[in-house]
């Protein structure tokens, strides 16, 4: 296993939103697993930290939650992306892309200035 990176504040919310967008409704455990997988096991999330983040998103109206049954019939709380959450996701994706593009230019200035 390669060196794992701690999830920094703020990006967890973006990951949650993106995951819900591609995967549809998920419970907290599923979300945590999925984020870990997507990162190629590079990202280490203490699964528990996802819950305060989910609560914040729910309070802001980006996700909604509902109790339901899991694939193997266990009770679980499912989170769904709301329309306003989708908009937030799009906005944050754009910002993120712009930010990484700028950073990328700084980190590889060779071609530009040459």
């Amino acid at each position: 296993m390669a060196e794992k990176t701690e999830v920094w504040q703020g990006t967890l919310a973006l990951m949650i939103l993106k995951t819900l967008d591609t995967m549809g409704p998920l419970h907290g455990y599923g979300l945590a697993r999925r984020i870990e997988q997507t990162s190629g096991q590079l990202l280490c999330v203490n699964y528990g930290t996802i819950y305060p983040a989910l609560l914040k998103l729910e309070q802001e109206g980006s996700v909604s939650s509902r109790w339901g049954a899991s694939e193997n019939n266990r009770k679980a709380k499912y989170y769904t992306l709301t329309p306003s959450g989708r908009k937030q996701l799009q906005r944050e994706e754009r910002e993120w892309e712009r930010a990484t593009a700028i950073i990328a230019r700084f980190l590889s200035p060779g071609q530009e200035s040459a």
Partner: protein
Amino acid sequence: MKALRAFFARLGGVFKKDRQDRELLDEIESHLQLHIADNVRAGMDPQRARRDALLKFGAVESVKEDYRDRRTLPWLETFVKDLTYTGRTLLRNPGFTTVAVLTLALGIGANAAIFTVVDAVLLKPLAYKEPETLVTVLHEGQGPISPADFLDFRAESRSFDGMAAAEIWGGILSGERAEAVSGIRFGEGMFELLGVPPLLGRTFQADDFNGENRVLVLGNSLWQRRFGGNPNIVGQELLLSGQSYTVVGVMPPQFRFAPFWATKAELAAPLDLRERAASRGGQSLRIFARLKPDVSLGQAQAEMDGICKRLEAAYPDSNTGRTVEVKPLLEQVVGNIRQALLVLSGAVVFVLLIACANVANLLLVRATARQKEIAIRTALGATRWRTVRQLLTESLGLAVVAGVVGLLFGYLSIAWIKSLMSGEASSFRLRMPRLAEISLDSTTLLFTLGVAVLAGLVFGLAPAVHAVRRNLHGGLRQAGAGTVALNGRSRLRSMLVVAEISLALITLVGAGLMLRSFTRLSAVDPGFNPHNVLALDLSLQGQPDMIGQRREAFYRELRERIQALPGVISMGSVNHLPLAGDVWTLGLNIEGRALPKPGEEVDAAYRVCQPGYFRTMQIRLVRGRDFSEQDRADGQAVAIINQNLADEQWPGEDPVGKRVAFDEPRSTPKLRTIVGVVSNVKQSSWTGEADNEIYLPFSQSSYFSSDAPHLSGMTVLVRTEGEPSRIAAGVRDMVWGLNRQVPVSNIKTLEEVIADCVWQPRFNLVLIGLFGGLALLLGAVGIYGVIAYAVTQRTNEIGIRVALGAKKTDVLGLVLRDGMKLAGIGILLGLGGAFALTRVLTDLLYEVKPADPLTFLIVSLFLAAVALVACWIPARRAANVNPVIALRQE
């Protein structure tokens, strides 16, 4: 937006904590179960699967903690906890709570009441369109303007976005019972200037001003009162003073035709100036205008000064010395009540500060009792800030409860103040401008809440900070507290008392000055005896046949009938009642003297009276004779003048027998022989200087010969043996018995008329007196509290002194000295403050200087005496300390 949404979700979280807690546990449990199941599927044994799941989840407790902090508003939760605790502590000390709440509520209530008045009278805009740009253009800021001058002003001025004139008017409205209604004539553009659309119908239009359309716009009050709010009133015909008018519109309830001078106007008719367009005499118009947005008051004034100068040069005969003042409308309405209200506001703030100081003192005493509790809190890890917050929450809780009670006090005071305005028989009537607009509303509520919170901080902060500044060690050590009298806390208490005493002294000096001024004012001699005289207005307007001999016969008959009533001494009547009615100043020429130059005319107030007037009013006849029944219309023309006119024109001479020509309205001047001189009477204002007056007998005046509306009414005066208001109904019925079409209005006693003149000083006196009393009471309670507490704390010391042989008087002196030292310092500081502050009272005082030494001295002595009594009670208790018991307390 999102943040706001999250805030409300968290706010909601505060109230469903338990359910959310359970949900989180359920969710964590479900998470772990899912994870374990996955792990088992991946081939782990159940125990390892469980351990791995728990490991990957991270610290459950820390997640819960994060979740909880996120879920609700932690500061709010602490606040709610503090508040609950506050509620419990306050309820556990009902005595303390009651005293503190009542003290504060008095202060807050007084502030709420005065603020409500200030807000309605001074702060709220007038109910017109953009009222802040409306101004009046009047002679010396208040006098009327002639039609030709007005038309020139309007044509020549460039500073205004419109200028219009209005004139006072009125008539008798026919119906089941005739009623005299006050009205106003509105010139072209007046409604547009005020900018208030009608509720029903329309206002005036251009062709209404050519004098052919007789149209009326009704005020809301008249429409409701006379026509029951009939929605079909527009288009109906009304009979007003015998003439038919068409109603074209009704104004909304908050609209006033004129916010000053013609405040009683309830209907408006168009003002047709065509006939008078060239007249520069007969000043009767009030001019309203709207300043252009970029023009300042000063610029408008400068322009008007220039126009007046040009008019003076062009028409020296009429316009010499005629200037105008441009004044904001609100200032015109509010007048000099502003000063009084500001002074009252200052006084209530003082009262509140004293109340705050008192409660701060109470809290300091309690802080001593709670020293242990605070020390334990600190020992258990509460930060200073946390403890200060807890203590501040307590004082704020106290303040809010006091605010609610204070609002109730405020509400009652406002109801009381308003009832003073309307009371028929009350001799304490208020003539406050805009009084009807005074009511408790959301502004007042917000203000009161703000004051309460501010007060809570003011009285809570010092004790709270003080409480945590003491160190832990000192707090936990129990014994020995209070053996030292002058520790930091008692120094703070002493300072608070000194501040209270000085604030109380300032307020009391204000009250004392008002009282002195009012006594002076009450001692003013109006020149007549107002005791036991009933006054009522009647008018024969709209009865064209009741003129000349018939009119005189009506009054003669009325006099005979009224004088036959039991308890009636005499009856007389006059056209303009002094202090209440109009004052028409007209010019007179003296026989044998050259005509005066412009600006040097001899003017005199014009009074028409019937025989018996001087006797009824008890106006002294200085020389010559009174009018009599023999002064008939066709007899020798006579007049009576007052002492002032006699002294001015005939110094050292006897004016009786001299002849003057007097220009009466609607009559050609004729030579009249002066037959008598009477003493001076106050004319239009209670404190005004005496001015010239000339009296004409009714039967030789325009009031006898003209049916013009303004020459058709008289004020009848009846002097009685007992309470004059008792015969009011009888007199009115007697008038209607003679002629049903005569409206009777303004029935009141002359004493009420005078009360109306001095309502403002009386209002000032009563309120400042009330606040002074409150300040005194609170200050006395404050000094009593401090001394009484000091005595309890020093019981030991006093016990030892007594045991060592101190006499009762020594102990008494010891305690009194302490108290009086505080009082003395407070009084000295207060005297300084009063000296600096009472200057603002200058305009409100009559014949009393703001630094009146006698008032300062008496108030200081009085306050010192009260302080002495307040200290005497605990001092006596100290003197009676039994040393055996006192020492055993240790």
